[in-house]
């Protein structure tokens, strides 16, 4: 057993885990944060994307012990004060989801794209940057629209962005 201590969505957690425990298992099984999903076993689909120390990571390919002393934000931690994060609101507004299974990872990736690339994202950039996220439902058309709109909205709501 290994001890991990980290901050998840603003809360400190400490637990003894089997050293082979993946971050996604730790989130889903230990913390019951089931918004982070698992869609593959080869680090290809991005359903599991969370932020670790402010950067997007695939939590299926990260050991819980690697996140020790880190700060993790999951989809459950994105909305602040009962208000949707601008990217969440954009996905709803632009019908960027159907079954919703890829959605938490998509949104966490999208926020990371904006953090890295800024709010003015053209279609080509968004499509290229979503390389690590699979969606089987939407054909990406509305996801691309949602990310572009969400990026703009994030620029207009800098406070919320900083809250992460």
């Amino acid at each position, binding site marked *: 057993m290994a001890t991990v201590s980290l901050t998840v969505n603003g809360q400190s957690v400490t637990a003894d885990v089997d050293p082979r425990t993946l971050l996604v298992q730790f989130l889903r099984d230990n913390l019951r944060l089931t918004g982070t999903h698992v869609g*593959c076993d080869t680090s290809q689909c991005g359903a599991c994307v969370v932020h670790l120390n402010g950067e997007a990571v695939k939590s299926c390919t990260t050991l819980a012990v690697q996140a020790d002393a880190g700060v993790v934000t999951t989809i459950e931690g994105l909305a602040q004060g009962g208000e949707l994060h601008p990217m969440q609101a954009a996905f709803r507004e632009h019908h960027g989801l159907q079954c919703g299974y890829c959605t938490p990872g998509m949104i966490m990736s999208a926020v990371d794209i904006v953090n890295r690339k800024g709010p003015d994202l053209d279609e080509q950039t968004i499509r290229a940057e979503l390389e690590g996220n699979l969606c089987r439902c939407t054909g990406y058309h509305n996801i691309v629209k949602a990310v572009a709109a969400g990026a703009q909205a994030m620029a207009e709501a800098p406070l919320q962005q900083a809250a992460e």
Partner: protein
Amino acid sequence: MTATGIGAPVRRKEDQRFVTGQGRYVDDFNRPGQAYAYFLRSPHAHAAIRSIDVGAAQTMPGALAVFTGDDLAADKIGGLICGWMIHSKDGTPMKAGPHPALAQGKVRYVGDHVAVVIAETLAQAKDAAEAIVVDYDVLPAVVDTAEAAKSSVQVHDVSPDNTVFNWHLGDKDATEAAFAKAKHVTKIDLVNNRLVPNPIEPRAALGEYDFGTDNYTLYTTSQNPHVARLVLSAFIGVAPEHKLRVIAPDVGGGFGSKIFIYAEETVCVWAAKKVKRPVKWTSDRTEAFLADAHGRDHVTHAEMATDENGKILGLRVHTTANLGAYLSTFSSSVPTYLYAPLLSGQYDIPAIYCEVDGVYTNTAPVDAYRGAGRPEATFVVERLVEKTARELKQDPAEFRRKNYITQFPHQTPVIMAYDTGDYAASLDKALELADYRNFQARKQESARRGKLRGLGFSSYIEACGIAPSQAVGSLGAGVGLWESAEVRVNPTGSVEVLTGSHSHGQGHETTFAQLVSDRLGIPIDQVSIVHGDTDKVQFGMGTYGSRSGAVGMSAIAKAIDKVIAKGRKVAAHVLEASEGDIEFKDGRFGVAGTDRSLAFGEVALQAYIAHKFSGQDLEPGLKEGAFYDPTNFTFPAGVHICEVEIDPDTGVTTIERWTAVDDFGVIINPMIVEGQVHGGIAQGVGQALLEGAVYDRSGQLVTASFNDYCMPRANDLPSFQVGMTVTPCPSNPLGIKGCGEAGAIAAPPAVINAITDALGHEDIAMPATPQAVWRAAQKARMPMAAE
């Protein structure tokens, strides 16, 4: 149109929970004391099992039990079933081999279920499974669709030549006669590549048994929980129907693959009682590739006869359909009655004859995948029509137009009676949106840059709104395909709708509520849609075949009509008027010709307090149910135009433009409908350019991960231009035709027609990977060069 009524692009009610991570999928459920199942799967495509030694596995840390097929047999658990009987030409029933949930004596494909370990943790279950010793006598495998019937390898004892059925449809003599008088005959050989559905949520099952009440509960990733319950109880025999609750909560996509009743959920329910613990199984992606039912996998030769004016005279088709190692739940219907009846396409074809040989191979079972039979039919018709137009040197759009059906209703030679449509209207609109007029200029511009530009049409039709029960019964279906609904009005006037449809991405919580809001004149947030739980919804047939709008919502509409009728009786008592004078309009029950009226909610309250009428005159309460059985299939149709640019040096195909014009009849929510079109096109483009399940000669699936099986990603696709035309469907009360499968049906021939147009070369197989396109481009450049 109100802001939330029929036709409004209402933002989805379900999205709040999905965008905040509060969706509840099967794997998100955990029951106290739950144990984990892990299936030991066959590493061989074909082998006899000499023995299975589970002794060491049973003593591994955390192992609770190890079960094999013998344990299921000892408990008289039956095999998995195929629910659609197909008869061969000679009248003999299809040859259905045994399909045990855990292998008995033999394994027939890589991934076949050999044994299950139940353990305290998943890791312990996996470790214990490694300690199971199976002595296999490995046999040669048959994997090739076209070769299966000639192979010396025999998959099932019941079928010495691996043939499940030799089926046919249409008038052979009339078709031969049509070909005899033809001026021109166009021939084509096509392979419809095998696909893996790959919803991003893998399948999962959580079984539970309550010793106090003798009740079983199964949480499962199902598109049709009631059908699952019926099959698990009446056919497989794991629990009596009234003692089994099946819950399909949020489900992360299905595309057909979650219709079927599989081994894993069967075993989880049964094992929960055996080990006296809830038992959970969640597929990993590799298992999904190996053991989810695959789609397509046809080999076809087809011929089209035309006269001197370019009118189509006849069509004859021979298809071999790979059904895999076992007959999955609806597998037999897919290459037969969901396929050949669509071979008339949008065209007036006097004579059609189609033969289909269904074959067994040592591969995963093949069943319905988005479109199910109809994409295969459309691929045949639209490739052949395009090729015919090219051979006759006619414009492919005008060749289609000349042959379109223009009079409705239209009886095709292959069962279907098309009720309505305006195919030329969709074509005109698509030509306009695609800027067809200027295509040649764009082609020349590409050529100046050394690129090859091509344009491909797909003028598809599908039969949806599945399906009139009597009709499908006469064709071999084991069930009726109606839908049920119950509309429960609460005393406060809010409404719960219980539906037998199931939403796994389609947005029913929104669209169904739009209908209720529209009809009852109440705010949409006063409406809840309840689905996916057999303890709540009495019965239902579920969601597939683009049926939830046309059939599921029609059932709701019927129940709403009954609610309004009852409401009028209540209002008549309260308003002291005669029932015949009560009108219901804009959410109010009023006395005609007066200003006396009651809001819907007031009538609901009066129905429950029952102070204004006696129990002899009227029953209290306001709750009505309905079963709706459609009178016909529905026939969504449209025109998709794909424009590609190919780099002949790399073989990379880029989709430059995608134009879709679809006629789905009346549309409830255009935002959601367009989303369905986008997703369908993406899957169709995936089939055409990227996806293909490949087995090697020994039966190993060499494309068993997202690293090896190329799923469409954002960068592989363009944005789509989507337009609509509307001819309301006359066969259901709402005029809906259905939209869920259209894109996947339309897209593959549009892409391949565009690529073959660009290359000037007809011989391109799907998926048209850069390598395949590059080879074809070289051939086109140097026609004399030996391959």
